[in-house]
């Protein structure tokens, strides 16, 4: 699997109700019904664990879509 697939998989693991047809790299946090602050924490923790990286507070705050998570993750690898 490549990085895109890995990040996408993290999204599906964090948001179990998400379907393939609903997924959009550009879709923003406020368009997800269940993306609250706890989901943000889960998303960040899972990504950090899978890639063995650490996000700063600013980076965590800036994650608001699958695309932004992908880009920040890419910059860490």
């Amino acid at each position, binding site marked *: 699997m490549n990085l895109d697939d890995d990040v996408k998989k993290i999204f599906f*693991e*964090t948001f*179990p109700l998400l379907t393939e047809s609903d997924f959009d790299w550009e879709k923003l946090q406020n368009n997800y019904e269940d993306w*609250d*602050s*706890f*989901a943000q*924490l*889960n998303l960040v*923790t*899972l990504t950090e*664990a*899978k890639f063995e990286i650490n996000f700063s*507070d600013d980076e965590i705050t800036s994650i608001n879509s699958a695309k932004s998570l992908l880009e920040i993750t890419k910059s860490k690898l």
Partner: protein
Amino acid sequence: MNTINRFLIDSSKANPEKLALIDDDSKFTFSELEEKVIKFSSFLNQFEEKSVISLLFENTSEFVISYLGIINSGCVAHLIPTGISQSNLEHQISSAQPKLVLSSDSYFHRIKDIELKNLEKLKFSDVKELSSKNKTPAPTDYAYLIYTSGTTSTPKGVPITHSSCDFSTKNIAKTLDYSQNDIDLLPLQMSHSFGLGCLHTSLYVGSTLVLQKNPKPTDILESITKYNVTTLAAIPSTLSNIVSNYYDDSLNSLSNLRLIITNSTFFPPETIRKIKSVLKTGIVATYYGLTEASRSTFMLFDDEKKIESVGKPSDGIQIKINDENNDGVGEIWIRGPNVIDNYWKKEYSENKSDEWLKTGDLGKFDSEGFLYILGRVDDLINVSGEKVYPQEIERIVKVLSGIDEVIAVPMKHKSFGEVVKLFVKKSRDSKINSGDILAYCIKNMERFKVPAKIEFIEDFPRTDYGKIKRFMLKE
């Protein structure tokens, strides 16, 4: 109310030639054991009544003779686990202020350099019969002193009276149906209240007690067959080890047991199911208790729906949930003859209110009166106002294969105040990683319960009794 020495005297009178005790090296009938104890106490009678005498022994007949000898001489037996650290040993001796420390010959090196004014130190083989006047303890006297394991704080001395012990022993015998026909296998240290309670029960009902120095599964299975054992007392990890690593023919030796008793507030359901599937007609049981309130509940696992409960309050014991929340969860309070009056020399406050012992454990009752333990009041994790019970997280994660032990603790967090941090000890050769665990948690828990950090650990900091020191994992 009886004193503990009466258990042996009465059984010896009823069945003098019956086998009372078996260990690796020796066998004693009740009359032989009684004779040994009387001889031993003739030496101890030189000490003033109510003097403390410390004991450091393995799980052998020498321990039983020494312990009962102390009881018989009206002294207080301070029981030290063999795995004790040097600093804890010094702490206990300094707090207990014994007149004599007795050890098995092989443990004498641990005590010979202890310094305390007027303290004598002896090996078991040094004790000789003396001509002395017999003494008789009273039911309200302290019989023994055990220090708490230090799981949650500094070990505290817990003195137990003869009458409290008599009450708990009779409850154990009645609830678990012990009788003189039993042959009880004990691969547990008797310096811990679980093992000691088993010794008292065997003496009280007049059954035969088989002592085993270590809890190795192969030795346990062999002893069950060799001695036609009917009951086994073991900690959950020993039982899990047996049912996970031994199959078919090996496990057949378990099948005729009438009782397997353990002592945990959390007994893995999978282990209970596996044991039940092996037993032909026997029962699996556990209990909930503290050193300060022995055997407060009993649970006989005969209902799958109650598999996570610790059972109902024992006869004569009251349990209530104090300051319960909307879910019925609150601190467990206990009242009854099994509850201590005070810690040793009142070194700590007894943490009681109107005779109710505040246990510090969190729990709830279901509609049928079964008690469930959810963790410790101090261990509760407060994630942005949401209460998380560590044991709930641990139970969920423990189901994953590749994990031996897991502990959830609070971790400070800028936005949420606290979040869950997980310490995980992997099984040997396990390939599980934190991503696997987190993905599983997200799928199986509410979001606020999902750990924000996972740390793998070679082993946990433990007390001398092998319990995990949870407080040392907290920030």
